[in-house]
């Protein structure tokens, strides 16, 4: 049975709070529960190993930045850029999140049950086996997948209309999968729609099941739904904009 540590974050600045988290992990804690979190930044930053960190409250900016391995579960909303440059592990947010979710993410998974702000998945990237995944249950905002270089970004739009425009602005790698149809006018130049093939679907189904499982949703409607897949039109979307041959 893994050791469980509970930390009260009420009125605690993020520096001593994160020191307590690191100490708990160094002491062999397998589960850390942080109560009364109110905007403390950098929770889970750079942590390694396989601990589970439960955040009760509103997580501050750059949650799980550079994290490599652990699982962070937020019962509440998160501010800007959860999963920033995350390496591996998992972030599960039961509420919504701010702008630049999964900013420059390199690997692992970020699941958000609610909405995300602008520039979700900005500059996600992939390399060999490292392939980050961002799944959003609600809506995403404009500039979704901006400068995306790799990885998988799924938006399910479970709570109404998807608001994102300028989708995939500057995308040159990876893929964006959105439930339902996406109007051509919502795509940025450099992004193109392609049909979701059976192989594509087989690839995303395990992710959808895992997402549904984490949030207690029925997976079957998600598995069977129609999806639009958006990929780069070229590997150098701005070749003609910034360079002249």
């Amino acid at each position: 049975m893994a050791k469980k540590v509970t930390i009260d974050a009420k009125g605690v600045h993020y520096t001593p709070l994160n020191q307590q988290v690191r100490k708990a992990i160094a002491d062999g804690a397998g589960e850390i529960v942080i109560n009364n979190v109110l905007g403390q930044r950098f929770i889970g930053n750079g942590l390694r190993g396989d601990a589970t960190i439960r955040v009760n409250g509103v997580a501050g900016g750059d949650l799980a930045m550079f994290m490599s391995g652990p699982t962070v579960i937020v019962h509440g909303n998160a501010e800007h850029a959860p999963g920033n440059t995350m390496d591996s592990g998992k972030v599960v947010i039961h509420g919504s999140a701010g702008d630049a979710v999964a900013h420059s993410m390199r690997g692992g998974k970020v699941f958000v049950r609610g909405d995300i702000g602008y520039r979700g998945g900005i500059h996600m990237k992939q390399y060999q086996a490292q392939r980050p995944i961002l799944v959003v249950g609600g809506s995403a905002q404009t500039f979704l997948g901006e400068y995306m270089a790799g990885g998988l970004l799924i938006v399910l739009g479970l709570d109404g209309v998807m608001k994102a425009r300028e989708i995939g602005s500057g995308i040159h790698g990876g893929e964006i999968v959105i439930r339902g149809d996406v109007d051509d006018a919502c795509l940025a130049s450099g992004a193109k729609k392609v049909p979701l093939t059976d192989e594509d679907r087989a690839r995303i189904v395990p992710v959808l099941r895992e997402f549904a499982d984490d949030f207690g949703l029925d997976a079957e409607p998600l598995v069977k739904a129609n999806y639009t897949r958006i990929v780069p039109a070229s590997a150098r979307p701005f070749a003609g904009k910034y360079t002249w041959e």
Partner: protein
Amino acid sequence: MCGIFGVMDKRRQMMDGSGIRDALSIMNERGSGEGAGYVAYGIYPDYQNCYALHVLLDNPGKSKAVVDATLEQWGAIEHEEAIPTCDQPNLRTTCTPWRYFFKPDATLAPGSTSPEKDIITNLVMQINAAQNGAEVISSGKNVGVFKAGGSGAWPEDVANYYRIQDYEGYIWLAHNRYATASPEKWERPDPFNLHDWSVVENGKITTYGANRRYIESFGYTCSMSTDSEVITYLIDLLVRKHGLDINLAIRALAPPYWDEIDRMPEAEQKLNRALRFAYGSATMNGPFTIVAANPDMMVGFTDRGKLRPMVVGECDDRLYIASEEVAIRAMEPKVESITRPAAGEPVIGRVAP
């Protein structure tokens, strides 16, 4: 970066400044400890028919004499006093905050539709542009700005210096500065105010030069070299002088992109094109979130590309606009509605008449 916070009570129920201080302080990470400020509406009920002039005086003798003489030329000083302060160990005081309760003589601005405000506007421009060691930092009825700059000016230090908890207002704006460009003078951080309107901003207006030339062509003088001064004057020009509804004024300052206009129904296209043509030089570019207020409303809006955060909370009669959700929760733990409006969707809260 900067952190901004605004709260309005729709039924004019008063809030003392301690909650606003706590809300701003929880976003300390957004600032650099080199400037912070607060503005509140409803704080001077005993002098609500006077224009409250908050002035930072380099020298309570010489620079004050210049202000006294200018005010006496344009109206009557009903009351004046030093703004009560409490020295803070980390905050270096470089000036004396003073307040006047002033009644302008409306007969001195014949032909104006708002003579008192024209006099106040000219007074503020004149005093601030001159090298006289005096800067007017707020000038409206029943409103006051409290701000400080320089090292050690964290939100709680500035609030405690001005004893902000002793003031009660129904609209409060607050700003925590991440110093970038301008010098660390006490008059430089937000909020900015010109009689009715106050502004706090998190951003960097890249069109500052064009906007400043535009506003100065209407007789405003910008002497603080900072965005928020220009924004305050632009709102005054568009709303008071040109009679634009606040919705249209915001649309002129942060208009939709041309391709968005192309997709609108025809009548709306026409309106938006006309606004962009008429107010091209007032259009602000660059990253920003702005919260502005006057005695009847509080509004928030962002740049078109949404390069700065804006979170909106509602709870009973209170409307909150902030850079981070936690600032709202710090003041109102039971807030239920939290939204993040899209760029181009201004948030407008009005006080009940």
